[in-house]
Every structure is written in structure tokens, then in C-alpha cells.
């Protein structure tokens, strides 16, 4: 649990650094997100006059749900302690809770920017979440369980083979991960123009320690999705449950390597593509939903696909 919390800002910093380097800039230092969080914690909170008690509680709720979800994803070892308490569907639903409350926060102050963010966010979610569930179905039908540790162990074993539905699920998961983490081409994490905001618009009125919690939750979510991609589709190096210390160490190194590669790929992708206009996003996510549905359909129809 603590590992994901410590690594998340580093990952965000790494992605920003690579993006800057690709654009021939120096870029902020790798530990800048940590410094940002500390700075935000020290500042006073400026609360809008129309904000309610819910506005102040929501950052804690978002942080709690995202942290619990991130802790349930295997990072370097497949046998997590309480992994049986929540399966992949529950993890998605936890992220859904976080998004529900964030959308409420956007509406709380009663400004038009918050409304823009919340309405667009629920539109994106209404297609991203079904796509994610279809991906979960695909994985569960192949591995025989919705439990993440079981799926990870299954992917490690040789019984998997190179399946079409897995390929489709991989592409769909990448598309959903981009949408959920508010990355280009769906949303720009570095913008403050209302035409292009979704996530940033919802958190516009937050400041100080509340904003620190929300930024940390966003980094945790990115880490969660990269870990998910790593443990599901690139599981080599994942320590089997009950492995030795050496295996765990290898697993940890492999995990850090996978995160680094994932970060580099994300940064390259973000710098090479332009942001889509808002109403192209449903087509993009609709394509992800179709891919997930196709993958599930193929698995229903034939066991070897």
C-alpha cells in the first residue's frame, strides 16, 4: 500500500520530464511533484462562499477510494494479502465512486466551469466504464476468475497463448486508460482553458491541502492503470505468490522497469498526437467499447479465440 503512494508522484514527474525532453525542453525535476504536494499542504485553503461541507469531505473520499483501489492491484508480486476482498469489478467500481464524488465537487460551488467539467466527465465515464467492464469480462472468461491475483498468475503461466481477444482487450484498455487518466487526446492535464478542460474544470475551486489530496489521487490513478497494464499484459517478472526474497526483488526491479517504459510510451504518445474535440471522444470510447464487446463475443463463441 505504501509503495504505490510513494511511487505515484515520481511516475507523474517522470512522464512530465520525458514529455519535456521530447519537446527539447529541460523540464521540471523528477521530484517536482513531491515539492508541489508539500507546497500545497502548507498553503491555506480558500473556500468559496457557496461551498458546502461535502466540498471539504470529498477530497478525503476520493483519496481513500483511489488509494484502496491502487493497493489492490498487484505491483511486483501476485499474491497480495487481502486481494480476495475485491476483484477487478470492485476496483473499477471504487474508481467509479471517486469519479462520482469528483463530479459532485464540480457542481458544488455553482459555477459554470464546474458544470462543464462534471457534465463532460460523466459523458466520458458513461462510455469508458462499460468498455472497462467488457475488458474485465474478456480477462475473466480467459482466466476463469475476476480476482486480479488469479488473473495475474494465469497470465504468468503458459496456458495463455497469443489470443485475438487479448489483443483487442489490450488496445481497448489502453484507450480507456487514456480517457480515465485525462490524458491527451481525451483531456489535457496541463491546461487551464475551459474549452479543453474536463478534469481540471472539476477541481478548479480546490486549493491548499484539498488540492494536494486530489493531485495525489490523480497520480495514484495513473499508477494504477499502468500497473494494471503491466500485470495483465506484460506479467514477466511478477513474483508468484509465496516466492523467495530474490524473486520479490526481481519483481520489484521488473515493476519499476515496466513503469518507466510505460511512462516513456505515454509521454511519446501524448506529444505526437493532438487533443480531440470533445464530441469526438464518444466515438473514440465507443470504439473501445466495441473492441471490448467484440473480444467478449469472440470468447463466448469459441474457447480458443
Amino acid at each position: 500500500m505504501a509503495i504505490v503512494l510513494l511511487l505515484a508522484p515520481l511516475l507523474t514527474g517522470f512522464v512530465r520530464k520525458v514529455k519535456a525532453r521530447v519537446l527539447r525542453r529541460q523540464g521540471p525535476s523528477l521530484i517536482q511533484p513531491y515539492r508541489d504536494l508539500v507546497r500545497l499542504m502548507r498553503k491555506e485553503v480558500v473556500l468559496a462562499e457557496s461551498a458546502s461541507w461535502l466540498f471539504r469531505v470529498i477530497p478525503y473520499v476520493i483519496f481513500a477510494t483511489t488509494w484502496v483501489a491502487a493497493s489492490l492491484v498487484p505491483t511486483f508480486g501476485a499474491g497480495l494479502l487481502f486481494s480476495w476482498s475485491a476483484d477487478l469489478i470492485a476496483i473499477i467500481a471504487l474508481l467509479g465512486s471517486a469519479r462520482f464524488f469528483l463530479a459532485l465537487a464540480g457542481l458544488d460551488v455553482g459555477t459554470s466551469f464546474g458544470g462543464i467539467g462534471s457534465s463532460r466527465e460523466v459523458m466520458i465515464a458513461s462510455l469508458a466504464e462499460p468498455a472497462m467492464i467488457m475488458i474485465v469480462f474478456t480477462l475473466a472468461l480467459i482466466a476463469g476468475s475476476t480476482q486480479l491475483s488469479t488473473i495475474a498468475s494465469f497470465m504468468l503461466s503458459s496456458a495463455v497463448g497469443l489470443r485475438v481477444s487479448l489483443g483487442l482487450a489490450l488496445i481497448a484498455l489502453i484507450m480507456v486508460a487514456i480517457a480515465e487518466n485525462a490524458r491527451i487526446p481525451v483531456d489535457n492535464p496541463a491546461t487551464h482553458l475551459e474549452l479543453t478542460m474536463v478534469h481540471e474544470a472539476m477541481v478548479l475551486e480546490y486549493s491548499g491541502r484539498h488540492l494536494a489530496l486530489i493531485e495525489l489521487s490523480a497520480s495514484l490513478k495513473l499508477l494504477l492503470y499502468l500497473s494494471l497494464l503491466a500485470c495483465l499484459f506484460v506479467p514477466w517478472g511478477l513474483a508468484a505468490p509465496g516466492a523467495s526474497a530474490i524473486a520479490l526483488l526481481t519483481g520489484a526491479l521488473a515493476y519499476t522497469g515496466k513503469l518507466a517504459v510505460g511512462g516513456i510510451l505515454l509521454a511519446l504518445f501524448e506529444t505526437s498526437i493532438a487533443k480531440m474535440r470533445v464530441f469526438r471522444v464518444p466515438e473514440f470510447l465507443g470504439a473501445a467499447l466495441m473492441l471490448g464487446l467484440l473480444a467478449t463475443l469472440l470468447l463466448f463463441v469459441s474457447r480458443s479465440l
Partner: protein
Amino acid sequence: MIVFALSGAGVLLLLGPVAVVIGKRKNANAVLYGVCCAVSLVLLVCAATHLLGRAPAATLRLPLGLPWVGSHLRLDALSAFFLIVVNVGAAAASLFAIGYGTHESAPMRVLPFYPAFLGAMNLVCLADDAFSFLITWEFMSLTSWALVMAHHHVPENVRAGYVYLVMASLGTLVLLLTFGLLAGPDGAYSFAQIRLSRPSPALAALVLCLALVGTGSKAGLVPLHAWLPLAHPAAPSHVSALMSGVMTKIAVYGFIRIVFELAGDASWWWSTIVLALAGITCVLGVLYALMQHDLKRLLAYHTVENIGIIFIGLGLALAFKAFGLAWAAALAFTAALLHVFNHCLFKSLLFFGAGAVLTATGERDMEHLGGLIHRMPQTAFAFLIGCVAISALPPLNGFVSEWLIFQAILLSPQLPSWGLKFLVPAVGALLALSAALAAACFVKAFGITFLGRARSSVVATAPEADGFSLGAMFGFAALCFVAGILPGLFIDALAPAVHDLIGDHMPVQRSVAWLAIVPIAQSRSSYDGLLLFVFMIISAWLAAIAIHRLASDKLRRAPAWDCGYPDASTIGQYTASSFAQPIRRVFGTVLFRAREEVDMPPPGSPSPARLTVVLRDPVWEGLYLPLAAAVTLASERLNRLQFLTIRQFLTLVFAALVMLLLVLALWP
């Protein structure tokens, strides 16, 4: 036990006339609703004892009704479960009404019918022969119609009542045909006799279709749902809660009784019809709900979506049962029954909240509300719990039943039929889509009504709801929470009902470690609501401690930043229609032919621009209007029969007589 239940229901029925007598007195409202609440609680305890004690089915025969049939009553596990659902809803609604009813403008139109409504619903669950069932069913419809018409001076209520009456009569007629078919030519109307008879597959198929129309119209399956969003909002709020949360479940009970028990062995293709209709109902229901800005109408349309979810579970159970996979059928069926219970809880809670808002502000239209969380904090909190529960978010109860249905869908590749192999993934996608859209719908409902700034002046003087209403709301919120973190208890309680109808039940959850639930096997999947909740509390607490220690705790109130464009007037914030606009544009342009027309004033003129959103209901325009037009046309043609001469009337009678004699002569 059955005698207790019967007498409880009888007391409720008798309270109706009593209410007519004492209704004008000062405390009549509180006394009457209090007695209803008490009797409902007694009935609840009765039913719970029967279900949890796993008592065998008890029957009773009363010499009322038709002379050669009598009136059979039976209390088995399924009836006990549905009695629990009815009475938990009734108790809470009565409690709510003790406070809410004091604001009722026409109490004499509500008080006599309300206890009769409760009594009728209880008796439908107990009925064990076709006549008792139909009589109590119709009585339920009529009393609820009277309650819908309570505020008859509002013209849209009159229209709602008319549509409701037509649909209810249609439903009862179809159910009459169903029972007629099941009883056969010998007139064996009691359910015990029907259970022993084995209808032919063709007859059973016909019974399924008729049952689907008859009970589906009461439950709210698309395309028979049209009365629901008209009638449910029109009634007083505690009655709306009962109609949405409980009466639709009585329809589900009717469907289960007829299709799972009385119609004999199911064929697998029955499930295709049920699943297809249920999937469409799910998505259409929630999309309709997203387009609404009337709070109660939004909740009513959302009931349609939840009925779709329940029928998805029932369809899967039918499919599994037909192919002999009883353990999988038990999972799907348990999920459906659990959702019946959960929906009753959170939908009633939401209607209570809407009722409290209506009493406090006089407004149902979300476009005139906003910022109510400051004026009605406790109502807002309870409503929030309801919203989180209905959006299927952990750790509350809505998530548990949806999770179980997803697990049942994941078992479906074992079904050998090709049609199902394509239908089930599609239905799964529709279910996932409707779950995501439901969350969007309730962000809108809660956010626009309670959050933000006030959009009109009614908010400024809104009082908090009274103690009884708050008590009912918090009671249900607590129940939602308990059902979410301890779902194993409820699944175990349902096992006898599931076993009776499916022949198998889910593994016993009491013995699972850490109070998790395991639908099939530990290695496959499990969910631990309690542990998840504990983790969330620990994380939040750790975060709070860390913040408290390390961060500054200063706080200052200031005007909203709003990107540097402070907006003093409140019309700049998002409204319900604008919140739904992206979704309306993505989904609504095709389904509802949603169009936005902007009427801009000429440049230089200070008059406001106008935005009109035009939506067209495809089911109403595609099915109901043509049907109504056809009926009107036919009746106009037939009207000519009124104006015949005496000679022509005599000819008609003569022709009918000759025809009958011919039939008698030629019939082999």
C-alpha cells in the same frame, strides 16, 4: 403464522373505512399512519420469522369468494420474502407520512385508500388461487389509482390517472387470460392444482408471453412502461415511494410465480425474450431519466431501469434452469431477488427525499432548486446515501446485486445455445452502459437539486424536513449500508426462496471467512464489503491524520474563483438540461431525435436568447399513438351500430341466432 399475516392484512383493509370516519379529526393523520406503521412492522416480523426459520409452506382456505373455489392463501418462502419487501417499504412510508402527511392538502382523498393499498399488496403475496390473486391485484391497482388521482385539480394528474387505469386494466385482462389458460378447460383455478398440471410447450410459451405483458406492464418493462413516469410522480410522495419501490416488485412476484412455478418447465428460448426486453428496458429507462428535469419523474424513469436489471437476472436464471445448471440459476435468481430488496430500499429513500424537498420548497422542478444542502443538510445526507447506493458504488448495497449479476453473466459461456451466446454479451454491455449512465443521472439529480447556488427564491426559506420523515430516511440509509457491508446475511436469508423455485441455492455465506461473499467458489471470485469499507475508513483516517499533522489547517472563505470571472447571478451555473447536454447529444440524437433550437435576438437587442430542447419519445410515438389512433378509428367505424333502424337491429339478432345454430349443427 399465516393467520397472523392474514389478520394483519385484514386490519389494514379495515383501516380504510375507519379512516373515512375519523379522517376529519385533528390527529387522524398521525394516528392512522402510526397504526399502519405498527401493523406493517408486525407483518414484517411475521414474514421474517417464516423465512429465516425456514418454516414449511403454510396454507389456509377461506370460504370467501366463489362458492366452488373458495379463497386459498399460502405463505411459502417466496411469499415471505416479498412480504418482507412490502412491509419494510410500508413501514417506512407510513413513518415518513406521519410527518409528510400533515402538509397534505386533500387528506380525505389519501387517508382511506392508503391502508387499503397496503392491505391489498400484502394479500397479493399470500394469494394461492387465480381468483384471489386477480381480485387483490385489481384492488391494489384501483386503490393506487385513487391515490394517483388525489390531486385531481392538476390536469396532468388526471391524464396520468387515465393512462394508468387503461394500462392496469389491460394488465389485469391479460393476467385473466393467462390464468384461464393455465387453469385449463376443467377450471382448476387454485395454484396447487395448476402446479400439478403440466401444460404443453406451446401453451407454456403463450403463458410466458401473456405473463410478460400482464406483469411487465405493472412492473414497467419497455414498451409497457408509459404509465409509470406519469402516475408515480402524480401521487403523494410516500405513495410514489410505495408504487415505485414496492408495487413494481409485486409485479415481479407475479412474474416469478407464473413463469418459474406455474408454467411448468421452462424452455431455453423464453430467456431470450426476457433478456432482450430487459436489456432494452435498462438502457432506455436510464436514458429517459437523464433527459428529465422533474425530480420525481427522473426517479420514476429510473425505476424502469432497475426493473430491467431485475429481469436480466430473472432471464439468466431461466436460461440456466432450462439447461439444467441449477447452481448458476441460483446465483442469477439470488441476484435478482437481492436487487428487488435493495431497490425497494434505495428508491423509497430517494422518493422520501424528493417528497421532503417538495414539502419544503413546493417545487419538483430541479431547474428551480439548488443549494439545498445548506438549508436541508440532513435530508441532503440521506439523499446522498440513496444516490451512492443506486449508482452501484461500493460499499453500499446496489453494488452487491450488480456484482452478482455480472458474475452470473460470466458463467454464461457454458450455455450451449447460439442465440444466447450472442445475446448475453450484448445484454452485459447494455447493463454496464446503464450502470455508468445511472451514476451520471444521480450526479445530476443530487448535484443540481442540493449543490450549487439557489436558482430561485423558494430555496431561501426551505425548512428542514420533520423528525418522522428524517427518521424514515435515515432508517433506510442505514439499511442500505448494512445490506452493503453484510450481504452474506441477506443472501443466506434468501436461500429458502431460491431453493423452492430453482432447486438449488448459493453456497452458504455464513461460513466464509471475514464475512465476504463467494458466489461460486473461493478461487473464482469473492467480495468483502465490510473489509473494503474498513480499508476506506482507514485510508481516509490516515490521510486526515497526515494532513492534520503536516499540513496547514488555515481556511478562509472567499468568493468562488471561477477562473477569474466571478459570476454574481446564479443563472450562469449549470442547469439540469445543460448537465445532460453531452449525453443527450451522444445518445439522444439517435434515440430521442433530440434537437436544440436557439432563438437569438437581433444584435443590439437586450432581450434574452431562448434555448428549446425538443425530445420525442420513440415508444410513445411508435407504439401508443398509433394504437390509440387505430382504436379510435375502429370505434368510430363501429359507432355506426348505434344508429341502425329497428329492422336492422332485429336482423343482427336473427343473424346471431342462425350463426349459433349453424355452429351447433356443424360442430363435430
